[in-house]
């Protein structure tokens, strides 16, 4: 059962990575990169590292996305000014 979960999640993660590279919209790319971090924490849990899984779940899903959004907002605001 566990190998099936790993293969399923791995295919989704690779698809999300390729989508994050090729999306036209930056916001969509950031959300795709967030999906990779979210699913990576399940992989860490299966590999027997709950500490790493907890770190990845809190940083990958929350703070990285938010920091990207803050930077994107500052950049977009400048664009609308001129």
């Amino acid at each position, binding site marked *: 059962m566990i*190998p099936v979960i790993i293969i399923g999640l791995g295919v989704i993660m690779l698809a999300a990575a390729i989508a*994050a590279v090729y999306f036209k919209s930056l916001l969509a790319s950031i959300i795709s990169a967030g999906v990779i971090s979210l699913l990576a924490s399940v992989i860490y849990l299966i590999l027997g590292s709950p500490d790493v899984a907890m770190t990845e779940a809190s940083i990958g899903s929350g703070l990285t996305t938010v920091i990207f959004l803050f930077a994107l907002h500052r*950049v977009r605001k400048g664009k609308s000014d001129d």
Partner: protein
Amino acid sequence: MISSYTLILGIALLIIGFYAMLTRKNLIKMVIGFSIADTGTHIIIVSLGYLRGKTAPIIDQAVSAVNAVQKVVDPIPSALVLTAIVIGLAVTAVMLSFIVEMYRKNKSLSIDDYQELKW
């Protein structure tokens, strides 16, 4: 068995991240590529620490303290990756601050507009 799958997954993510860093023109896309490569590296290191059929190195009702050495996975890669993830967040924040500052100077996010070092 399990860890060879995750090893391949980590290497694939690392290569996709490097490809994004090399080919994309947008600076924020490059940072996204860096973050993908970061995740791939962490998955590789954690898979190298996995031992077949063993469980997390935390002693509770499920793992007795007497024969813990025969039952747990390697704790050292976990400890290294734990700090590396937090450092990765801080590095991402610094890179994005640089990008915001560069944008304020040149009003552009494309790498083609930054030619000071081109020869």
